[in-house]
């Protein structure tokens, strides 16, 4: 066990490093001095009862909480690839290129499948010239990687909104890939899907590990066990315990963790 902990301390390998992050919605404090290290190329699950701040923590990494304006305040730091993203001089477009996000409900854009996949690519690489065949290659690679190519290849001009929820969610992952983000955040990405689709998505997420650093919120503990390498357990705005997934589930160190994984909170 000590070997794992030793590896944890190796800062150079961190994709995300959250330090003393506190966050307020108005007067309500949602996060309390949260620390969290996420290793490059790993899958880390965030678990905890609903309302404990998982989504809030996730949204701090790509700063989409800021949509709410000055109502949201944060202190502390969030480093992505060694750079503090809470700094003043951070260009949000570049941050969001590096940190993609997948939501609870699939949210493809009201465009064709093709335009969806190429959306971020065109956005972030507008100053380069790509021929149609280059774009086609990029699109095909992304769709293949999310195991969606065979399903949509015959009609890439179809409305993305018309696809099944499973396919939509895969598409939402696919559209992140062409710009090669370092980190992909996923907020309960399978909670709108049926069990079969959930399994397909979990399989896909597992396949992406290594190429991408994935931080995934789930309230499905079986999913955390199956589809993550590390797990952080949160409670009331704090990270209570963060370890290798198998270790956390087999031998939790904290009483609260044990209570939660045994289903004693909702």
């Amino acid at each position, binding site marked *: 066990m000590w070997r794992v902990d030793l590896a944890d301390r190796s800062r150079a390998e961190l994709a995300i490093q959250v330090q003393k992050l506190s966050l307020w919605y108005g007067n309500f404090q949602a996060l309390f001095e949260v620390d969290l290290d996420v290793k490059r190329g790993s899958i880390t699950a965030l678990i905890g009862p609903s309302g404990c701040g998982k989504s809030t923590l996730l949204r701090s990494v790509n700063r989409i909480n800021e949509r709410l304006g000055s109502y949201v305040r944060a202190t502390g730091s969030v480093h992505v690839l060694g750079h503090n993203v809470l700094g003043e001089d951070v260009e949000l477009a570049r941050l*969001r290129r590096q940190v993609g996000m997948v939501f609870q409900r699939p949210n493809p854009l*009201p465009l064709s499948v093709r335009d969806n996949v190429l959306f971020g690519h065109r956005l*972030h690489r507008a100053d380069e010239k790509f021929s149609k065949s280059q774009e086609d290659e990029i699109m095909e690679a992304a769709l293949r990687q999310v195991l969606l190519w065979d399903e949509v290849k015959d009609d890439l001009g179809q409305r993305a*909104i018309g696809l099944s929820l499973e396919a939509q969610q895969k598409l939402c992952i696919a559209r992140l890939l062409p710009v090669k983000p370092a980190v992909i955040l996923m907020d309960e990405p399978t909670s709108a899907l049926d069990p079969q689709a959930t399994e397909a998505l979990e399989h896909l997420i597992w396949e992406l590990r290594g190429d991408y650093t994935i931080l995934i919120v789930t309230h499905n503990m079986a999913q955390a066990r199956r589809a993550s390498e590390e797990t952080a357990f949160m409670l009331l705005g704090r990270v209570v315990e963060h370890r290798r997934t198998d270790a956390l589930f087999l031998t939790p160190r904290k009483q609260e963790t044990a209570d939660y994984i045994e289903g004693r909170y909702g």
Partner: protein
Amino acid sequence: MFEATNLNRRNHQIQWLFKVLFGMMTLILIVPVALILGVLVAKGGPAISMEFLFSMPRNGLTEGGILPALIGTMWLVGVALLASVPVGIAAAIYLSEYAPDNWLTRGINLAIINLAGVPSIVHALFGVGAFVVFAGFGASILAASLTLAVMTLPVVIVATRESLQAVPMAFREACWNMGATRWQTIRIVVLPNSVSGILTGIILEVSRTAGETAPIMFTGAAMFLPFLPQGVLDQTMALSMHLFVISNSIPGMSEEFKYGTALVLISLVLLMNALSISFRVYLRGKKKW
């Protein structure tokens, strides 16, 4: 076991009563419109001819055609559209996509809605002061069209804003989260999905200005001009004004001419509406949600 009880029967009766009542109201709504159209076609139809549409009026407006009024109305509506549409759409985009949700924005929105209720004669007086006198355009198509534009600006803004807000917020957020700026989001997602609503809303609203008389009466419309307008600084005749004049001020005017002029005016409006509706149908077919 499943037979109707007295209570069920009474509910069915009440429900039938309301259905008939609401249906009658709809009928009351439709009848006058149908009557107006019917009378116009019956009494004005015989007046319509190539000569009526495409020749100059003669003999103190009692003979000949309405060409200068027809052309003039197209000028007035066209120039008014050119002025109000870009300004109105830009303002609506600002208010709906950029402006923070605070008391100032809410105040502006409220003011716009109230502005839409200002009587057209008040706009006419404003137009005289602002465009004819102060800006020095004189009585001209430009002054009259700008007056019409100011008058229609609120409805253009409201129609545009409603179409913009019909685009679900989730689409915008998805776009922002990919790293798109507000403008990129507007251009790629919001406008393509609202343009049909915007354009039809605008055309529907603006086509009504073709029938306005008060705002153009003092700012650029003339009772009679023996020539067609050559540019925006000319005065012009207009259908609405022409109808007003021949209905009130010309003794011995034939009924047929009056109804014929009204029929042309209303056909012009309906034609624009039909165009905008077919445009909407066409664009909706291309929508991706």
